[in-house]
């Protein structure tokens, strides 16, 4: 069974049709890259999947359960939306770390707040917090940030900040990680340190959707590539097919413009 099914998603901003009937499926452990020219709707699609944006029509199905339905969305309470967002980890282009918290605190903040909803929180508070902190440290270590627990975002490079942001999302054990151009705000020399972390997640069979302009990376890391053009999926397939044998005219044009 597919872990995620996106069905006929439509989204308008005012009169502009940004997504015109987008559908795709993905399996557990699959890595899907989304490429496409600027303004083609990649970010909007990602934001619709985890409710940062409300799609006008269509369905999102997670593990067979309809978690979003354009028709019924109005009835969903903030609380329901919040719970459902937790299925996804989201990494922003601009990191959006919390500046007043250290790297470690950025990673532990949400798990600690969520732990308060657990029934056994009162009795086991110290134990729960210790586990959360250990888990956060483990994540930061594996992202090469073992020395940076106590650094504030303003003391970290862009690449380090983005790695903290990835750890922060992972700390909640999401089913699916969503990345929106995670390296676009970075200098070319440091994109690699972030891409390496994402690659290692792929090797651990994390299910991921990655919007990216890094074609070589998309080709290397993905099981499948989706090419978006003007609000629709114009072509999708295995990376080799997409990059070496593009069928649609638009994809051929797009690739010849970004040729590595």
């Amino acid at each position: 069974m597919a872990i995620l099914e996106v069905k006929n998603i439509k989204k308008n901003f005012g009169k502009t049709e940004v997504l015109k009937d987008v559908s795709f499926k993905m399996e557990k452990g699959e890595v899907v890259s989304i490429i496409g020219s600027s303004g083609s709707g990649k970010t909007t699609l990602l934001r619709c999947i985890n409710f940062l944006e409300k799609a006008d029509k269509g369905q999102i199905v997670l593990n067979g359960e309809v978690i979003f339905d354009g028709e019924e969305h109005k009835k969903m309470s903030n609380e329901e939306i919040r719970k459902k967002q937790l299925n996804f980890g989201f990494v922003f282009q601009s990191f959006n770390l919390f500046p007043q918290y250290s790297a470690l605190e950025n990673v532990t903040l949400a798990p600690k707040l969520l732990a308060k909803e657990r029934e056994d929180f009162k009795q086991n508070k110290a134990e729960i917090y210790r586990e959360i902190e250990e888990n956060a440290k483990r994540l930061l270590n594996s992202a090469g940030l073992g020395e940076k627990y106590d650094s504030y975002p303003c003391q970290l490079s862009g690449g380090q900040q983005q790695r903290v942001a990835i750890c922060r999302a992972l700390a909640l054990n999401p089913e699916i990680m969503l990345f929106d151009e995670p390296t676009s705000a970075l200098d070319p020399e440091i994109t690699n340190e972030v891409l390496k972390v994402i690659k290692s997640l792929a090797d651990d069979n994390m299910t991921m959707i990655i919007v990216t302009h890094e074609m070589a990376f998309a080709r290397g890391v993905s099981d499948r590539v989706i090419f978006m053009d003007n609000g629709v999926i114009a072509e999708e397939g295995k990376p080799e097919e997409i990059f070496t044998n593009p069928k649609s005219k638009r994809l051929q044009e797009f690739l010849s413009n970004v040729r590595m």
Partner: protein
Amino acid sequence: MQLFTKVTMSLLEGLGTTLKIFSLTLIMALPLGLLISLGSMSKFKVIKYPVKTLIWIIRGTPLMLQLIVFGLGPGLLGIRGMNMFVAVIIAFVLNYACYFAEIFRGGIESIPKGQYEAGAVLGLTKTQVFFKVVLLQVIKRIIPPMGNEFLTLVKDTSLANTIMIYEITWNAKRMMNSEHILWPLFYSGVFYLALCGILTLIFNHLEKKLDYYKG
């Protein structure tokens, strides 16, 4: 020397009243200001526009005028026994709440949308996002303009003397008239300087405390 002691005692008495106006205004105007700022950012037009109009009127007219309206207005309307001190506090609280409201609004609106979104995708409730993510950042940003307002308030308390509140300036003027001397006026300035000096130190300290991070 006896005269100096006499003037000092009188000004100290005035200082008590000045401090009372100052602290009562802050205690009430800060929360009221937060409420007004939330109102001015409300999605509901029936709340937003009346609140914005109130802010416009209060910030667009002299505090002196407002003091007179609240001090003398009730009497002119035939309402007897209005306590002048209460009138002063109402005028100050309303006036400062509106200034604070604009500072709060500026601070809240200056927080990037990405901070709210990052909180949301991490499963924080709206309340948690406000208190755990946004609030400290807002405080850091509004400390400098708040410092200014606090200093202005110290000096504005002297306006209360125009409707017979016996604060520092009133007492200084009384001494000048009864003793036929000029220097109590300058001496009263020392009291304001001292108060503002202390506030400046406190605000500098707060700014330093939040200097551990940028952004």
